[in-house]
């Protein structure tokens, strides 16, 4: 498995010298195929710091799929010099490689290193936008915030290590995580979690998200908005299997609630679509953390399912945005006007993804939310559920606004949007994916419940 991964990246490096990059998404798809075909079962590697189980395989699979979509999306980044093209994909793959490691890492330092690998590649990837000051600003912001967050995470590890005398998750699982007995360990865990809360842009670490989304080119934003979050979520799923004391859970729950509300309220007034999505991702992070805070096999499985749903929804909407965007410029709400006549297909796909992001049935967003709400209510967090559903009502306005602009307002000079056959079929495929995850979630969800049970016990 790992050997194949390494091979893929060696190829990626050699490709540096070449111009032809069309094979890149296919390679990613091939990786996904390998993950799904690889024999299931659990296996330890590298002195027990690398663990292959069904959860890690699931996340690897979706990272590969997401990578394939992102790479296909980035095939013709308009404002990227020819010479940079191969570098761009190299760093994208490098970052994804970090995420792959992250989904299997079961030792705190390994997690840390994998995370840094993923982040550093992303730091380089972000400013790949020719002659745009905002891109540089975004990258600097991301680097500074990221460095602080990972430093805090490292600091947290030191506390955990000092209190529990091990950095292996399998051993940590058996330890006591109550505040009464292990206050230091719990504080350490909280600090360590902060590093990942930063990654998924949860309040109060969300400041980078809108700026980075806005600053990075559309294609890069599609990548930065989705895949790194998956890596953070898988680690958080593993950490929450500790069943830490109520102190950490409460902090997470409060963060989740504030995050949802704040994200939605701020998104209401955005006019740049990517900025809007940035704030909406803050709200979605709240949803994932809500499921994590619920804990238990169902809670963790819903968090993982929501992560998948979130990735697919966002990739879909970003796919549409990159198609609409004129010469790689940011898309404003007004640019969506008259989309129904300029490209009925894109308008439809946009509507599907927007309604999914609201959580309207029968899309994936609804089922994902339903799972999360179920597990949160089951864990007794009634107030959080109420806040979450009120937030859904709050979120309607700006998501609906996207659809409204696309369908009901007309542009004075409607110009048809030229869609390549691949662009069109990918859009359809992604929309079908959103609907599929909403209508037949059973198999994937059952698999995830099994996987979560595996890591809890």
């Amino acid at each position: 498995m790992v050997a194949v991964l390494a091979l893929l990246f060696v190829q990626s490096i050699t490709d540096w010298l070449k111009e032809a990059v069309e094979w890149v998404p296919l390679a990613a798809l091939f990786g996904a195929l390998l993950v799904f075909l690889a024999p299931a079962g659990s296996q330890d590697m590298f002195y027990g710091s690398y663990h292959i189980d069904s959860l890690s395989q699931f996340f690897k699979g979706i990272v590969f799929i997401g990578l394939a979509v992102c790479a296909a999306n980035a095939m013709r980044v308009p404002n990227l010099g020819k010479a940079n093209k191969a570098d761009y994909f190299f760093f994208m793959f490098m970052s994804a490689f970090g995420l792959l490691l992250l989904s299997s890492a079961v030792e705190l330092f390994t997690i840390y290193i994998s995370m840094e690998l993923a982040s550093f590649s992303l730091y380089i990837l972000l400013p790949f936008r020719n002659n745009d000051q905002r891109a540089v600003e975004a990258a600097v912001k991301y680097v500074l915030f990221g460095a602080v967050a990972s430093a805090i995470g490292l600091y947290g590890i030191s506390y955990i290590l000092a209190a529990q005398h091990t950095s292996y998750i399998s051993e940590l699982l058996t330890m006591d995580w109550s505040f009464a007995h292990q206050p230091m360990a719990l504080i350490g865990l909280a600090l360590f979690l902060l590093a990942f809360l930063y990654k998924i842009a949860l309040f109060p670490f969300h400041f980078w998200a809108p700026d980075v989304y806005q600053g990075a080119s559309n294609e890069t934003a599609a990548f930065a908005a989705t895949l790194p979050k998956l890596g953070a979520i898988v680690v958080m799923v593993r950490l929450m299997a500790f069943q830490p004391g109520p102190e950490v859970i409460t902090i997470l729950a409060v963060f989740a609630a504030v995050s949802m509300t704040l994200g939605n309220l701020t998104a209401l007034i955005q006019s740049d679509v990517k900025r809007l999505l940035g704030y909406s991702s803050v709200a979605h992070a709240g949803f994932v953390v809500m499921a994590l805070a619920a804990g238990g096999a169902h809670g963790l499985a819903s968090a993982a399912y929501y992560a998948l749903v979130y990735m697919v929804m966002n990739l879909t909407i970003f796919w549409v945005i990159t198609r609409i965007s004129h010469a790689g410029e940011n898309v404003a709400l007004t640019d969506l006007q008259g989309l129904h006549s300029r490209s009925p297909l894109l308008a439809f796909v946009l509507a599907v993804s927007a309604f999914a992001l609201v959580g309207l049935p029968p899309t994936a967003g609804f089922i994902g939310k339903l799972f999360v709400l179920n597990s949160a209510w089951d864990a007794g967090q009634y107030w959080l559920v109420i806040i979450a559903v009120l937030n859904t009502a709050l979120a309607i306005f700006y998501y609906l606004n996207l659809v409204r602009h696309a369908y009901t307002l007309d542009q004075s000079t409607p110009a048809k949007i030229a869609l390549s056959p691949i662009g069109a079929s990918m859009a359809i495929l992604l929309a079908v994916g959103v609907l599929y995850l909403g209508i037949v979630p059973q198999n994937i969800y059952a698999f995830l419940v099994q996987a979560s049970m595996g890591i809890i016990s």
Partner: protein
Amino acid sequence: MLTSGFPLLSTLIFFPLLGAGILFFLRSDTAVRVFTLAVGLIECLLAVPMAVGFDTSTARFQMVEKAEWIQSWNISYFLGIDGISVLMVLLSVFLLPICVLCSWKYIGRRVKEFHFCLLLMTTACIGVFTSLDFVLFYIFWEAMLVPMYLLIAVWGGPKRRYASLKFFIYTLAGSTLFLAAIVALFINTGTFSIPELMEHSYSFRFQFWTFLAMALAFAIKVPMYPFHTWLPAAHVEAPTAGSVLLASILLKMGAYGFLRFCLPITPAASHFFAPLMIGMGILSIIVGSLLALGQSDMKKLIAYSSVAHMGFVTLGIFVFAFRGVEGAIMHMLNHGIITGALFLLVGLIYERSHSRELAENLGVSRYLPSFTGFLLLFSMAAFGFPGTNGFFSKLLVLLGVFEVSTPVGVVFIVGLLLGLAYLLRLLLNVGWGTPTKAAAWKDMSFREWVYLVPLGVLVIYLGVAPGKALSFLGPSIDNLLDNFQAQKELRIETASTPSAQFRAQDGAYLPLSFAGEDTRPIGQHMHAASLHLPSFQDAEPDVRRVAWLPERTSSIPAPVRMSEE
């Protein structure tokens, strides 16, 4: 439960969806119209075996289809109909061809999308009325919003954006709390199956909050005063077909929700909140009628009259008397037919005068005699002229209300008189005012005859011979009230049944405390509440029996409960 071999209900639900898919491949506008009409007519034919095959002697859910869907959360694909839903399904199916016909000329642009939305709406509506699984129900319930939103937002009047957004946000805001209630019910019982949920009993606190969450969604949908403000805006801006669908089907879903969920699942809370709901029902009647009286826009007038009409329905439901509930359901059906027809008439005259102002459409009787005839018929039905369907259902509700409380009944009659006032104003102005422009208009075309005649026939038929429709309802209502009587006196200590999957701790469902410790029986809550209507204060202090809740009046033997199968 009676299972049919052929998945009739699924066919009914998904046939329009299939049609919507095929629509994509049609090129010309006329082809789209003809095709949708054909789908609508075939759908009507498909509904015939459902109506004929329906067994009117039992209250059980019939033509049940059940399949596993999401096992991890015990969600299933579960369909079935009882007497209440069969009428609503028939109404939804019946209106589809009418909607196509009335938009034939009116909709000139983006014709394909328009009919796509119509078909999608039909699918969602039938889905709502036949779902027996809460998640499935919620999916259809929400799925309906999207096409309705588009119908208003794309083909609506000048203020369509405002109206459609308001409609969407209002209804979805209510529905999200409804979703929380669904989740709460599920965690409490471990099932999403509606018949199973009806069998459980819940603690009063739980019912209290669940009822509130569900009732808010339904009250917005009904719409009940003071949640009605989205309705006039949406109605006025929507195209004719949209108005018809909105008035005839969407508004019914709120009342249907009360009947299907609030009464059976949270009987004690329904009971507790009944004075509030009755009060809001009365307010809806009075306020709706007064507002209708003051309108100069014909569509607005009818929209506000819908608020009043649906007030009658709420009233009928929450008196918990057999006649009242029967009348309420019949009035749901009748209001669907009558108000739908009135909107069609307004649309019809709008196509001629391009104005919905009363002042612009005066005195058409001489020039449009057949139009005036239909207007006369449907207005009479709307204010409840004997011999029309409106009379009959209002009479039933009135009987139910008087059984329970004379003062409420008197207020009810005041509401009826107000209804007479605004409808006469409409009728006299439009029919026999001083004509301004009417001379230039043509009377109804063949197409317009085609879609109005069936509605007219139904108005008369249901007014003269309502027995057939009522025969669908008897056992279902009986069962409903039976369950209700059995469950309303609630044992507070009742433990919920924990599912194997979810160990929910009893009593832990409601973190917020309600009125101190809950050890009193339900009756005392009622007396402690300040929501009394005058007659309720006369209730005996006996906590086991509440005076204003009548004994069951029907002589139909108690139906077999589902648990005995």
